[in-house]
């Protein structure tokens, strides 16, 4: 395959450290590692508060990506991995994390993480990850009530967006903004399949569509696709979006417009919800383990 000269898909890797926290005083230091197909997050919680995290691109080797994410997160502090009391792995590569004490599914982790970051009023979560898209409903404790997951298909995923970014030669982080720099909202592209979308995009450009119009047509096709998924499980308030695409306003705003709801923006980063959830599960399991030990 021809290597792209410029890497339009490349998104910004994230780092965070809460300097107000002294990890030495913490009774519980837990780590959640979420290995997705596109990105990997390592999130450290101290006594149930976010202390630090790193979000990096997943490499070809899962254990290696997990180690790198943890290293990046801990590089910001003098906390060492041996100081961590409990580690939970999640995400599609979760079985390949050698240092995890336990694994939990990403569905449960996203619900838990969104509940923590967005508050107990969160009921519906749309997780738009690198290789799939899931609709989750949860209760006030962040426990899953219903979920819907799809076969592996790039349409409506971060990977699909990367393909579009490369195809249109637009940096992925600019797509959302550019997709609104248009006179009139164009109709969505007809193909949900990213492979067919390539042919369609070339056709549209030849017909005289601007780049921004094509991007808009894609974003709304992607939004429409996930809205149909969401409607199968139903959308209850409060609604939030997790995963990398949550940062793409081109898609999220169009989802909200179509659903006619508002969303809770997860802070500090919607991409770490799974990792936060995993770290919270780790805290529960640590507590349970300590109780059992007396």
């Amino acid at each position, binding site marked *: 395959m021809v290597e792209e000269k410029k890497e339009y898909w490349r998104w910004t890797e994230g780092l965070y450290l809460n300097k107000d926290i002294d990890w030495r005083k913490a009774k519980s230091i837990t780590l959640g590692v979420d290995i997705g197909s596109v990105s990997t997050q390592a999130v450290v919680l101290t006594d149930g508060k976010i202390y630090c995290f790193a979000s990096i691109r997943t490499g070809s080797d899962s254990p290696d990506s997990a180690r790198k994410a943890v290293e990046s997160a801990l590089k910001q502090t003098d906390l060492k991995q041996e100081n961590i009391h409990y580690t939970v792995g999640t995400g599609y590569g979760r079985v390949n994390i050698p240092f995890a004490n336990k694994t*939990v*599914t990403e*569905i*449960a982790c996203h619900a838990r993480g969104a509940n923590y970051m967005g508050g107990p009023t969160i009921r519906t979560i749309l997780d738009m990850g690198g290789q*799939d898209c899931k609709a989750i409903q949860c*209760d006030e*404790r962040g*426990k*899953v*009530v*219903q*979920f*819907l*997951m*799809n*076969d*592996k*298909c790039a349409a409506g995923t971060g990977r699909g967006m990367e393909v579009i970014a490369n195809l249109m030669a637009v940096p992925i982080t600019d797509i959302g903004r550019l997709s609104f720099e248009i006179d009139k909202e164009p109709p969505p592209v007809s193909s*949900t*399949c990213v492979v067919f979308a390539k042919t369609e995009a070339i056709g549209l450009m030849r017909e005289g569509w601007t780049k921004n119009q094509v991007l808009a047509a894609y974003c709304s096709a992607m939004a429409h*696709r996930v809205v*149909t*998924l969401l409607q*199968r*499980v139903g959308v209850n308030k409060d609604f939030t979006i997790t995963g990398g695409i949550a940062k793409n306003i081109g898609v999220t705003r169009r989802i909200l417009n179509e659903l006619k709801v508002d969303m809770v923006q997860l802070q500090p980063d919607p991409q770490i919800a799974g990792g936060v959830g995993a770290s919270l*599960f780790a*805290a*529960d399991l640590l*507590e*349970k383990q300590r*109780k059992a030990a007396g």
Partner: protein
Amino acid sequence: MFGNWWKRLIVAPGYIANYGYADGSGTYYITITTEKCNACGECVKACPAQVFEVIEDDYGDNVAIVKDDKKKNIKYLCGPCKPTANRPPLPCMAACKPGAISHSW
């Protein structure tokens, strides 16, 4: 407080799990209502594509789920059982006595 939280999870009812696909030709979802599932494993035996397994889930309940390596390929794995014209009911649904499995096609 975490101890309590954990206990509440164990007695809490289950969840509805939908695995499947949506494309131009329609939607295909296998739905497991874990609250109704008694973990008997009859679906595991009945499925010709070995899609199911019974495991302890994230909340400590024993339930049937669609296996990790199968849940991304439902369209093709379940395709042969998909009822069109005069086809019998899905083997998994027929095998599930508590009626925990349903489908959307």
